[in-house]
């Protein structure tokens, strides 16, 4: 389903039919509705989607960090290297979390403790998980900071988080996440709060580390440019479901789900060309001259994302979908094979390619 080399590369993580819901005042909010995924060793899997699509909650569930109550997690299995993570006690989970599976969050300021020095925070992790002595832990932490490109690491490690810039704090977070040499790094919008020039440095750093250590990465982002830059494979999420899965090149060259296409046409690009997607009109030429009407228009997805506490009965994208047909309002589509090791969840697309694909739902 995912890659040609699947038989050669071991699968690190398998998630089957993950559901997460939260009890809210407005009713049951179904944040994640049946997500299944495989992650291969050394692979970067991107999860793209808008706020409320369930991308972050999916990963909190993988880490055993969904607050319960009000949250409720259910799945057929969450298999990490043959070990079932589902229903693992907090104590056993904490042995894996931080050691084998590490996380980097969007906002490095709120994920670092402002009252502790970087040294105190970094050594705590390795002393706990790797049994390092105080001295060993400090030497190791300095080495990690140097590796992520923090100048004068042995001096700066004595500093407090506020003494670091945003980009430097994110480097510290990455150094800390990688200090136990994890197999899997989950990065939730790791560069969203950073400036573009710093984002470029951090993405480079993550790719380098992956090359050196073969770490698998799950990267959650809303930025399709970041996806194109670093990911091998991509899941597109909408309203708690995976609506498309594809190798990164196929996703941009041949997006199948109308939501994916809508995302691509919504994004303005730096060179003024249109991304793939529908391109309803030929890519708008941008004539020279200072004429005030020369600007092209973006093609947004009309409407608003659905309320997760009262989802429409059929396809949750149907109310905003330009391809919508009557069955879309009643049938929540399954995932259909894309033909190139991917999947998509669009009834209209599946039937457009004849009954064969439609019959072959996954």
């Amino acid at each position, binding site marked *: 389903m995912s890659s040609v080399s699947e038989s050669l590369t071991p699968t690190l993580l398998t998630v089957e039919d993950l559901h997460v819901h939260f009890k809210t005042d407005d009713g049951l909010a179904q944040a994640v509705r049946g997500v299944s995924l495989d992650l291969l060793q050394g692979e970067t899997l991107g999860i793209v989607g*808008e706020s409320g699509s369930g991308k972050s909650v999916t990963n909190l569930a993988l880490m055993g960090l969904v607050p319960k109550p009000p949250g409720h997690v259910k799945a057929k299995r969450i298999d990490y290297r043959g070990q079932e993570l589902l229903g693992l006690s907090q104590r056993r989970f904490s042995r894996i979390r931080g050691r084998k599976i590490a996380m980097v969050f969007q906002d490095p300021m709120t994920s670092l403790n402002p009252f502790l020095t970087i040294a105190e925070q970094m050594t705590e992790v390795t002393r706990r998980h790797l049994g390092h002595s105080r001295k060993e832990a400090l030497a190791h932490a300095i080495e990690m900071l140097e590796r992520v490109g923090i100048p004068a690491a042995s001096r700066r490690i004595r500093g407090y988080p506020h003494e670091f810039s945003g980009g430097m704090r994110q480097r510290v977070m990455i150094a800390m996440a990688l200090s136990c040499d994890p197999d899997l790094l989950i990065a939730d919008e790791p560069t969203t709060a950073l*400036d*573009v*020039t710093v*984002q*470029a440095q951090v993405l480079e750093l993550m790719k380098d580390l992956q090359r050196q250590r073969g770490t698998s990465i799950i990267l959650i982002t809303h930025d*399709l440019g970041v996806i194109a830059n670093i990911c091998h494979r991509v899941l597109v999420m909408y309203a708690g479901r995976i609506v498309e899965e594809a190798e990164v090149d196929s996703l941009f060259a041949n997006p199948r789900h109308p939501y994916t296409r809508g995302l691509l046409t919504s994004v303005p690009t730096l*060179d003024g060309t249109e991304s793939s997607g529908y391109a309803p009109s030929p890519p708008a030429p941008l004539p020279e001259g200072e004429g005030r009407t020369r600007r092209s228009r973006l093609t947004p997805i009309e409407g*608003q994302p659905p309320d997760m506490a009262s989802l429409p009965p059929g396809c949750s994208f149907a109310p905003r979908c330009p391809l919508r047909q009557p069955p879309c309002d009643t049938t929540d589509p399954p995932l259909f094979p894309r033909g190139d090791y991917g999947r998509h969840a669009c009834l209209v697309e599946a039937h457009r390619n004849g009954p064969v694909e439609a019959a072959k739902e996954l």
Partner: protein
Amino acid sequence: MTKMPVSAPNSFADSAASSSDAPILDVRNLHVHFPSGGGVFTERRFIRAVDGVSFRVFPGETFAIVGESGCGKSTTARAILNLVPPTSGEVYIDGHRVDRLGDEAMRPMRRLAQMIFQDPFSSLNPRMTVGGIIREPMRIFGLGSPREQKLEVMRLMETVGLNPRLMNRYPHEFSGGQRQRIGVARALAVKPKVILCDEPVSSLDVSIQAQVVNLLQDLQEQFGLAYVFIAHDLAVVRHIAHRVGVMYLGRIVEEAPAEQLYTDPRHPYTKALMAAVPHPDTVRERQRDQQPLGGEPPSPEEVFIGCRFAERCPLADFECFRIDPPLEGEEHRTACIRVESE
């Protein structure tokens, strides 16, 4: 929205007809310095958030200011409306000098120039209904009777793509994109000539972002509005701006018509900034020359003799550390002694 029920001396019709030779906004050598630290034993220092910025914006035009966090772009917008006091320099709105005005005298100027903020969650009063929020500026400026104001609120909601029947709802009942529309309607309520937009779409999801960008463009064409569009997203700026100023550490280092800036960036910082943006397409992304700019911007407390970008600049030589480069050129202006200006 063609007929305005509220009587306004300077309606859109007048402003659209007026000559576009005169700038609606003229900013000259603006400085905003904040005192920083400095106690009994230490010297008092200043953060030079804005350190000599000049630009002009003409009716119906979008002038964008782009730059990274801390470059002074938001402070520039706030200083124009006197929300932070300028340290020195001059600001003219529609020919009136406003930088020295006190609150009371500034008030009528705020009718000419309105602001839209980045965060549609904190910039709307949660205890007021949407109708009340949009109506408040009309009430403050005494525009029209209560009945006329209510009609105008409904008209404005329709103009920005909100259902007028929702006027008695509260902000929390709306999504981020809809709240930003409320902010736009509120800004339009006093029929301004220029709107300062501070990162108006950066907190929105991409599909919603495109809706708001299109709305801003429509309103501009409809009412002949001028925008100062503050943003860090270079792709959005290319899409919406007629002219662009690139800011680095309190200064505009390059200014040009948008098309020229994007096809022919000249300042090394502009080039580095553009080179850093990943392209949402794998083919083009692999063609991109990925050489990240090293280092980080120096502290805005630093006092520079030479060029502020010199220490990160691939072209810098010893002269760059001694000469503060002026912004030179006609249409396309660049502040770099290593680059030939026009």
